[in-house]
C-alpha cells in the first residue's frame, strides 16, 4: 500500500522543517550560540520521516547523537529543541543534555545517546517492557552503520530475535563512521545481511526516497506488531555535511558530495513526485517551504530569548527523591496544561501473561521416560 496523499505532503513538510532547522543550527554553531559537538541530519531526512509517519505516535523511538531532526518531526516544540542546543533553561533538558541528548518523552522520543551503539540494548529493553505488559507497541531504534560493529549491536540482536521483541533496528548507513568509510573496517558492509546471523528479518532500502522509507517501515511495523519478532533495516543514505560541525570532511571528494546533493537529495525527489502526480502545486509547496523557514526563525528567536539555566539547577535531576514526579518539559517551560505523560500499570494491576520460554523438560527425566 503506497502512502496517502496526505502522508506524502506531511513527509515533504517535515523534511523541509528538518532541513531548515539544521541549517539554522549550523548557522548558530558558527555564531558560537551552540558549542561542543553538533551533528547535523542534513541529507538523511527521508529515513526519519518515513519511520515517524509509518509508525504510531505512541510507538517508542530513539537514536544516537545525530538527534535533532527525529523529535522535531515527532512533534516536539522547535524552539525548545533549539533552546536545548543553545544550552538554555527552556530546552528539553534545561540545557543539561545539549545537541547529543534530546529527549521528548511526551512524544515518546527516548533520546539521543553519545556512546556509539549504546542505545541499541535500551531499545530491546523498551520492547521487552511492551511485550511484558502485553502492549502492541513497537520500538524503533536508529543508529549509524559504524554502530553495527559494536558488541552492543550483536549482543542485542541475538536477544531481541531469540525473545521475538517488537523492535525495528534501523541502521542509517551514511557510509562514513566519522571519517572512516564503512567498507574499510567492515568485513560485511551490507549491514542488513548481518540479520541472517540472528535468524531475523533484514532488508535494505533507498534511504533517500521518503516513499520507500515509509513503505519499508510500515511493513516492518506490521510484522513486529503481529509478534513476529524484530527487524533489521538498513537505510542507504548520505549525509551532506561533515560528521559533526568540526569535521572538514576531507576523507571524501567534493564531487561525491555534490553528486549526492544534486541527484539524490530526498526533498527535491519527493517534491518532484508531488508535482508529477499533481498532489500539490509548486505554489503550495513553496508556501510550505516558506512556513517551515518561518517556524525555524521563530525557534531561533525563542532560544535567543530563553533564560540561561541557573546554578540552582546544578544538582537537580541527579537522584529521584521519594515521591518526586518526572519533569514534563512543555509544562515546565510553556505552562502547557495538555501534556499527556506516559503512565504504567501498578505492580498490583499488572498481570504478566507472556511465556518467554516453554516450561523446562528435564533432560534426565526425559531419558528415564524413554527407558
Amino acid at each position, binding site marked *: 500500500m503506497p502512502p496517502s496523499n496526505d502522508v506524502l505532503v506531511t513527509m515533504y513538510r517535515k523534511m523541509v522543517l528538518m532541513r531548515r532547522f539544521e541549517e539554522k543550527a549550523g548557522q548558530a554553531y558558527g555564531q558560537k550560540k551552540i558549542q561542543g559537538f553538533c551533528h547535523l541530519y542534513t541529507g538523511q531526512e527521508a529515513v526519519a520521516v518515513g519511520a515517524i509517519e509509518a509508525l504510531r505516535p505512541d510507538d517508542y523511538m530513539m537514536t544516537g547523537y545525530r538527534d535533532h531532526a527525529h523529535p522535531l518531526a515527532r512533534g516536539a516544540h522547535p524552539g525548545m529543541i533549539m533552546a536545548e542546543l543553545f544550552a538554555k533553561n527552556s530546552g528539553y533538558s534545561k540545557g543539561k543534555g545539549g545537541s547529543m541528548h534530546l529527549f521528548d518523552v511526551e512524544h515518546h522520543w527516548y533520546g539521543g545517546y553519545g556512546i556509539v551503539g549504546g542505545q541499541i540494548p535500551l531499545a530491546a529493553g523498551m*520492547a521487552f*517492557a511492551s*511485550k511484558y505488559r502485553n502492549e502492541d507497541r513497537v520500538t524503533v531504534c536508529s543508529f549509524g552503520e559504524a554502530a553495527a560493529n559494536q558488541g552492543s549491536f550483536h549482543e*542485542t540482536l541475538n*536477544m531481541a530475535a531469540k525473545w521475538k521483541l517488537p523492535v525495528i533496528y534501523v541502521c542509517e548507513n551514511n557510509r562514513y563512521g566519522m571519517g572512516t568509510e564503512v567498507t574499510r573496517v567492515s568485513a560485511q558492509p551490507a549491514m542488513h545481511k548481518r540479520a541472517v546471523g540472528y535468524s531475523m528479518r533484514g532488508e535494505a532500502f533507498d534511504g533517500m526516497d521518503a516513499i520507500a522509507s515509509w513503505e519499508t517501515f510500515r511493513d516492518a511495523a506490521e510484522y513486529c506488531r503481529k509478534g513476529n519478532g524484530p527487524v533489521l533495516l538498513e537505510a542507504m543514505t548520505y549525509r551532506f555535511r561533515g560528521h559533526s560541525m568540526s569535521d572538514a570532511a576531507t576523507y571524501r571528494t567534493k564531487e561525491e558530495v555534490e553528486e549526492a546533493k544534486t541527484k539524490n537529495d530526498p526533498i527535491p525527489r519527493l517534491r518532484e513526485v508531488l508535482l508529477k502526480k499533481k498532489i500539490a502545486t509548486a505554489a503550495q509547496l513553496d508556501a510550505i517551504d516558506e512556513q517551515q523557514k518561518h517556524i525555524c526563525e521563530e525557534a531561533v528567536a525563542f532560544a535567543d530569548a530563553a533564560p540561561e539555566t541557573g546554578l540552582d539547577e546544578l544538582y537537580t*535531576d*541527579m537522584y529521584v527523591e521519594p515521591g518526586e514526579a518526572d519533569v514534563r518539559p512543555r509544562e515546565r517551560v510553556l505552562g502547557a496544561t495538555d501534556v499527556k505523560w506516559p503512565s504504567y500499570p501498578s505492580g498490583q494491576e499488572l498481570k504478566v501473561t507472556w511465556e518467554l520460554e516453554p516450561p523446562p523438560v528435564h533432560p534426565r527425566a526425559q531419558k528415564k521416560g524413554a527407558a
Partner: protein
Amino acid sequence: MATLSYREALNQALAEEMERDANVFLMGEEVARYNGAYKVSQGLLEKFGSARVVDTPISELGFAGLGVGAAMVGLRPVIEMMTWNFAILAMDQIVNNAAKIRHMSGGQLRCPIVVRGASGAGGRLSSQHSQCLEAGYVNIPGLKVVAPATPADAKGLLKASIRDDNPVCFFEAELLYGEKGEVPEGEHLVEIGKADVKRAGTDVTLITYSRMLTWTVLPAAEELAKQGISAEVVDLRTLRPLDVETILASVNKTNRVVIVEEAWPHASVGTDVVDLIQREAFDALDAPIGRVTGLDVNMAYAAALEAATQPSVQRVLAAVNQVLYR
C-alpha cells in the same frame, strides 16, 4: 526471628518484592532453570514464570542495557551479574546510561534498576575472579552502591534497592552466601544510606563493610576485648551515599580509627572515608587513621599467596595497636 543464610535472605527479598510488584523481574545468566549460579534465585522461575525470571545469553553489556531500557519505561529490573568481575563488560550501560538518563533528559526519565551480583574473593579463583570493584561505581554520581554483610541487611537492603527509583549497584560477597544469621520476620526493610554500629565500643572505631565485617573485623574486636580494648564496629552497608553522621559520631566517641576493606588500597571506599574523617573530625583524632586493605597485587591462585593478599585478624590487630600507640 528466623535463621537464614545470606543467599536465602536474598532469595526471600526477591520473592517478596516480585510478589508485591509485578513490574519487578529478574534477569541474568543461569538465574532461571539453573536456579542461579549461587542459588540466590532458587525456585523463582517456578513461582513467577519465564518472563519474570529470565535466563540470558552471556552478554553482560546487552542484558544490562536491556534492563536500563525496561526501567526507563516503567519496569523494575533486577539484573544479576554472576559476578561483578563480568560486569566490567556492562559498565558502559551502567555508567553512561543508567547513571545519566535522568540528568540527560532533564528529569523526564528515571531508571529504577538494581544490578546485583557476587563480589570479592571466592576461594582459589585467581585474579580475574577475585576482585572488589565497588569503588569504580562509588565514583559515579547518579548511582547508589550497597554492600550488605549480614543476612538481615542483605534482605532489607535488597528490598529497599528494588523499591528505590534510582539505579542501585548491589554488591554481594561470594564467600558470604552460605553464612547464616537472624533475619526479622515479616516486612523487613533497611534504609539505603544508613550505616550500622554492629558492636558498641569506646577505645577505637573499626569501619568496614561486606565480608570483612563477619570474617575479620568482628573476630578482631572479640580478640581486642580479651585484651581489654573496647572496639566499636561500624558497618557502612551503603557505600554511596556514605552515612556521614554515623561515621563521625563514632570517631568523635573513640578518637581512633582503623578502616578495613577487602579491596585494593588506592582510590577505594576506605580512602574516601579517610578523606571524610580528616575534613570533618580532624580535631577528634588522637592518631593517624589506620588502614587494612587487600594488598596492592593481583590475586594469586596459590593458597598461601591468596591468604596473604587479604586482610586478616592479625593485620587488624596490628593496625589497632598502631593507632593506640601500643
